């Protein structure tokens, strides 16, 4: 059985404490503080301590969903991509780029924010791009 300790950065506030995720098999079973980190210095707050507990929650989204009437139905990735791609391109064609807007995320990584930025400006062609920095 796989056993691993993975050093990573806390997903909650902006302090940026580091901790280890303890992995047993395919399950994350604990969070352990990191002593050498200059800010957290072996401590964690109540949120950080519990940061592994939402990851494998039973309500995680596991499949793409498309709304039919009032309900969602599960679809394949290719079907979902097609619907999104067609929808975005059609709005761009009919109403122009600035009829589109994107909210990026303070939860996503730098690399993801960069790609979302590239996608919004380069492909959609709009600067209507923001995230919750103000909120």
């Amino acid at each position, binding site marked *: 059985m796989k056993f691993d300790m993975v050093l990573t950065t806390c997903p909650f506030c902006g302090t940026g404490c580091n901790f280890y995720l303890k992995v047993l098999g395919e399950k994350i079973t604990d969070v352990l503080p990191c002593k050498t980190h200059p*800010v957290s210095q072996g401590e964690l707050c109540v949120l950080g301590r519990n940061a592994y507990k939402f990851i494998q929650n039973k309500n995680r989204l*596991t499949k793409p969903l498309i709304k039919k009437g009032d309900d969602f139905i599960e679809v394949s990735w290719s079907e979902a991509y097609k619907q999104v791609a067609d929808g975005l391109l059609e709005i761009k064609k009919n109403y122009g780029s600035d009829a589109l807007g994107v909210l990026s995320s303070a939860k996503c*990584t730098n690399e993801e*924010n960069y*790609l979302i930025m590239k996608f919004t400006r380069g492909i959609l062609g709009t600067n209507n791009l923001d995230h919750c*920095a103000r909120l």
Partner: protein
Amino acid sequence: MAGLAAAFGAGAMTNSIAEIDDTDCVLVIGSNTTGQHPLVASKIIRAKEKGAKLIVIDPRKIPLTEYADLFIQVKPGTNVALINGIIHILIEKGLIDEAFIRERTEGFEELKQKVKEYPAERVTEVTGISKEVLEKAALLYGQADKAMIFYAMGITQHTTGTDNVKSVANLAMVTGNIGRPSTGVNPLRGQNNVQGACDMGALPNVLTGYQPVSDPGARSLFREKWNLSLPDTPGLTLVEMMDSAREGSLKGMLVVGENPMMSDPDTQHVKESLEALDLLVVQDIFLTETAKLAHVVLPASSFAEKEGTFTNTDRRVQRVRKAIDPIGQSKPDWQIISELAREMGFTGFDFDSPEEIMKEISSVTSPYAGITYERLDKGEVLHWPCPDENHPGTPFLHEKEFPRGKGKFFALDYIPPDELPDSEYPYILSTGRIPFHFHGGSMTRKIDVLNQEVPTGYVNIHPEDAKKLGVAKKEWLKVSSRRGEISIQANISTEVKPGIVFIPMHFSECAVNTLTNRKFDAIAKIPGFKVCAVNIKKQDRKIQGSFQ
């Protein structure tokens, strides 16, 4: 950040968290630090134990006040008047750094004239703070050799938020508390990667590293790298997008890992806006309140299922590492965006790993030019700017000069909050977070131990007001504003002053943003979450459950 960018030319924490250890004075304004940044708070408390002075300015008697040498329980929305008053005293008492002002700043004469209009008598009238307390604050901060200011949404989430930030920048510069270790003006960011999202240009007006979209040179750098052309006029902010969606000019939105139905002001308005869209696509790890309104929902992977980096509040770039495979068919957001771009027929998104993406980021972003996975994985502590691979990073900014050249003082007038209490809505509502939950609650409300601590929302109300309303702890109240109303249980607390109530933002069953005001600061476009007028009535409803 707009306030700091105007004063210094860069909007980020000027100093790093580790520098708290050696400071002589900490001034905390509008940050409930023990609750929102607990590990920063423990550093502040340790510095205090070693002899540093601590000043706390807040409308609420937050836990950090127990350690403070001076607690200033300011009336919400009156920070500019308060700080003008303190600067007035600093000048009178000769506690300013004249050499620093002469060599490093501009606009001091205008500031000096302006603060003359803020003698203690007037400041007391506006803020409710006595002359003695103002003088003590000026002495504690002004006599320290090295003083650090920390602030958070408590001063930015106002209709005058940009002025509040410029005010604290004035205070730091007038005393020369910037450009040295253990000093500075330090906004504590509330989300793990809000700094990074800004650095990466997830904003309507800038590309990565704050290069303006209106700058032809910046655009051509990206055009050459991407082989795609870029729009040149700044776009809409989040709150403006909601307005445009509602009036019909914005037709489609892609929302990645955000939950505006919980985190934006005036929930009813947000709902109507999102429902008016022809296409709403949401990428998230849970079916959030916002995702429920989407036409298409794409399942994303959490931080534990991917590689990458976050940039924390003190500009330090840190690694995120994959611990387990993506749950179900979920995918990391970088992969979803890459595949979607390819589906739309575009090239330039053929990345095999986040490390490859970081290489592209470094090539177009000078503050990140020296940041590599190799260095981070060796354990190097890298705060940007880090302009090349041999550069050690920059824990504190503005040592020799400011990005804009000289630091700029702003002569500011006190402007009352947009919405003040009146006979119809006689209470001031302030919103925020509590230690046991996070933001819109989509992650933390799925964690049992946290729900056991605080299972639902409540309104903090002063004992005098509770008596007036005839309400006891846990009894139900109807809180209403010009936007909407919620039912919520009372918590009698002296943390707030009479006439002021506080409601945490994490609970969708009593979502406080149903009440808040969309009206935003003219420059930073941050809504005034910290001050809006409400009415409170007792409700006849059975008490069930508890919150504490």
